[in-house]
């Protein structure tokens, strides 16, 4: 093995450590007793390992217990935020992928005047920075009386994104037309072709898109921060921000904070472990997202 290759392996190893260490540190801190953390900042193992931080952020411990382990004592309930994130991400993903698939079919397979121009217009929307449309969208959601409701959080992303339509259209264009033609000769309409042929044949790309959409929706912070502050619809990312700003400046509840971030990150880590190959390969393929 040449010197160059050895150096390259060492660099790769360092990269993997740098990538994984923060995940480990999140775990190590979440299982520690917060009152003991400052005394052992360099300990590689959990300090006085305990489940206290998880109990605290899931609202399972009393105020006294929480404060004894260095919590702020403020009521937090990450079960609720977990449920809210599940509701928002699931509904957003199902609706967005389904409606985008319908639109992608119209752009890939149907013929109608102005089709390519309309498609170009949809794509042009990718250029507009989200904050520009977010301000008027906030006004709209507020005027509709949908602030602090799931509908308000979900609606803007429920119908389409230009990327989703673009992504699926590419696949639909690549599907062999012969099957569809055979079905048409048998008298199948577009509805039957879409549901009976196109969707079943696009299982892989639809699953990939759904996973990416789910992750994006789960991780979104800006929009839910604006329209979903109240506890009953507060999603995990927003709850983390609130938790961080509530934690006392003098002695922050680091263990609690890391337990909460772990709860927010864990579903995505599981999703990733389950679909690592599909997600990783989609990066090379879809090129850029």
């Amino acid at each position, binding site marked *: 093995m040449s010197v160059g290759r050895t150096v*390259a392996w060492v*660099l*790769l190893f360092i*990269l993997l450590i740098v*990538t*994984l260490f*923060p995940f480990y*540190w999140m775990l190590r*801190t979440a299982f520690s007793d917060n009152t003991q*953390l*400052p005394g052992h*900042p*360099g300990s590689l193992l959990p300090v006085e390992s305990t489940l206290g931080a998880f109990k605290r952020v899931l609202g399972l411990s009393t105020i006294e217990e929480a404060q004894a382990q260095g919590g702020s004592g403020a009521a937090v309930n990450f079960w609720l935020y977990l449920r809210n994130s599940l509701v928002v991400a699931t509904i957003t993903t199902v609706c967005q992928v389904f*409606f985008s698939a*319908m*639109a992608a079919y119209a752009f890939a397979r149907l*013929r*109608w*005047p102005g089709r*390519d121009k309309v498609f170009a217009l949809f794509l042009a929307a990718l*250029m507009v*920075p989200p*904050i*520009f*449309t977010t*301000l*008027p969208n*906030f*006004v709209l959601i*507020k005027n509709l009386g949908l602030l602090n409701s799931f509908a308000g959080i979900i609606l803007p992303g429920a*119908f*389409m994104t230009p990327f989703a*339509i673009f992504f699926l259209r590419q696949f639909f264009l690549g599907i062999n*037309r012969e099957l569809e*033609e055979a079905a048409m*000769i048998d008298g199948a309409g577009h509805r039957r072709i*879409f549901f009976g042929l196109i969707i079943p044949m696009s299982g892989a790309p639809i699953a990939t898109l759904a996973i990416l959409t789910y992750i994006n929706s789960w*991780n979104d*912070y*800006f929009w839910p921060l*604006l329209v979903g502050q109240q506890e009953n619809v507060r999603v*995990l*990312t927003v709850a983390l*921000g609130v938790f*961080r700003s509530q934690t006392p400046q003098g002695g*922050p509840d680091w263990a609690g*904070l*890391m337990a909460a*971030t772990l709860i927010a*990150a864990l579903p*995505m*880590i599981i999703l*990733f472990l389950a679909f*690592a190959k599909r*997600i*990783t390969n989609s*990066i*090379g393929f879809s*090129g*850029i997202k």
Partner: protein
Amino acid sequence: MTATTNAPPTRKRSHGEQAAPPGRRRSLGDLKVAMIFLAPATLGFVVFYIWPTLRGAYLSFTEYSLLSAPKFNGLANYERMLHDSFFWNALVVTVEYVVINIGVQTVLAVGIAMVMYRLTKSITVRAVILAPYLVANVVVALVWYWMLDFQVGIVNQGLSWLGIDPVAFFGDSHWAIPTVAGINVWRHMGYTALLVFAGLQTIPAYVYEAAEVDGSTEWKTFWRITLPLLRPVLVMVLVVTMIGSFQIFDTVAVTTQGGPINATRVIYYYIYERAFTRFDFGYASAMALVLFAILAVVSLVQLRLLRAKESDLA
């Protein structure tokens, strides 16, 4: 490319649009079906993309506090921007962030991609380096906020083992922006590396073989062959990552909240504050429109660089 020729739903479609016989009369084709398939997406597009884009442009010429109807005030918001030192500071801070973030991230990504290309195509390695990208910005920001804590963070602990004084990563105004930029480099470098990696695989092997025959060293091959051939991919990657980088918000919002003083008050955060803590929607919209224009110019310039020579491998 116009898809308006009359094609009954029969086998005649089989050859696709380009091959459709010309000279047929214009017709609406599948318009009726298409309208049904497009209805939900179009509704969402018009209500949440087109309409707010137009309304946002209008609001930028008004004074609007959400409490009463928008009041047209011409170019007042734009004039105000010229004299608003916070706005200019936000632009400077944002550019500083983008330069550090994109500069470091791109160099690291190319390096990582080269190392992976030479050593391993292992899906596990690729999956691991992608992992940070799949965790929320907020989560990443908070984990690093803890690791970089001045008193008990592990990074400062490590520095003390090396005999280096602790650094107030978030509290020192010189360090705050490089810190936030570094955190997001950590989150994005693996993802960017995979994009570059995909680009590397499009370079045909014979190019390298030829270079080897000519006795080129690896270092020379990288600078004279790999990098130039990678340029189209790199420009696309730069356009996309840079547009994303200008929109830095989440990390700042959960860590420094614009501080210390104004050191991390980036443009997105400043617009957010104006709109949602001061309810200054007209002025916020005007700044958002300027940001839109800046992003458009940045992308156009970069795309022109791309088109200047489509590929060096003709």
